[in-house]
């Protein structure tokens, strides 16, 4: 199945909103670190419901925020969730970004980058569109050290890339981005039931659930364009 088919179905299901709720737990901390200045142009790759762009616009006076998504239904929903005319949406693919060279101040992506059919190509595209000194905030929950994420591929038809911390840093550098930061951001907001509630539908033991959320959380890698 294509990105479009898979994620159009998610959007029709309302899973865009479900992801927004869950991803916000860690995304808000990463977004708060972005050095966005008034007037900056920010691009959100795989925007889903578009919450990141809305948040950046409100918090930092970002000038314009564009959400790109390969699923027309995701983009359509996202457009309906905001009245702000300086938050726009574009249907496009991570493999060939429809943005001009040196046109964007910062790129954001949450739980989306690893769906790129060629992640190295996508990093080169990100580097191309970023202005010198612009940053790429790449946040993922699906990564090698997070063993609890390894099974996710089984329920998604689109092929996913599972890199480690080291592989992210190396791939950023290979694409010509400087690596400025790498961090695991714990999810402190998700409610974890008492021990006697386990096993739950999703978790064998409380320890595993604690490790997944409070320890591994979201892997953030920040690159800067030269």
């Amino acid at each position, binding site marked *: 199945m*294509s990105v*479009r*088919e898979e994620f159009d179905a998610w959007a029709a299901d309302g899973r865009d909103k479900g992801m927004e709720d869950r991803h916000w737990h860690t995304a808000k901390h990463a977004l708060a670190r972005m050095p966005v200045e008034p007037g900056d*142009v920010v691009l959100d790759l795989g925007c889903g419901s578009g919450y990141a762009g809305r948040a950046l616009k409100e918090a930092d006076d970002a000038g*314009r925020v*564009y959400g790109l998504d*390969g699923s*027309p239904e995701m*983009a*359509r929903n996202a*457009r309906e969730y905001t009245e702000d*005319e*300086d938050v*726009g*949406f*574009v*249907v*496009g*693919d991570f*493999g*060939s*970004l*429809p*943005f*001009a*060279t040196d*046109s*964007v101040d910062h790129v954001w992506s949450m739980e989306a980058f690893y769906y790129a059919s060629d992640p190295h190509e996508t990093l080169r595209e990100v580097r191309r569109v970023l202005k010198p000194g612009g940053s790429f905030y790449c946040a993922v929950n699906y990564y090698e050290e997070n063993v609890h994420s390894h099974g996710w591929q089984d329920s998604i038809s689109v092929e996913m890339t599972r890199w480690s911390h080291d592989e992210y840093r190396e791939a950023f550098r290979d694409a010509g981005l400087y690596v400025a930061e790498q961090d695991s951001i714990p999810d402190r907001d998700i409610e974890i039931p008492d021990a006697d509630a386990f096993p739950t539908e999703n978790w064998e033991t409380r320890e595993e659930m604690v490790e997944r959320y409070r320890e591994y959380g979201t892997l953030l890698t920040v690159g800067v364009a030269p």
Partner: protein
Amino acid sequence: MKESLMDVLCCPMDKSELELEVDDRADDEEVLAGTLVCTECGERYPIEDGIPNLLPPDMRDDVPA
């Protein structure tokens, strides 16, 4: 889409400039329907419900709309 988006958009294939053809507007700024045409390769990208579809042509057409 707001017309100011034109400042940063380009053709996904050859990264050349696009030209905007407007069919329908919500107001002075907001384009609801139209086409983006690549000034280099001539490829035409549709704008529907205010959202430009700039998928590479082979991906755009992979599922019947």
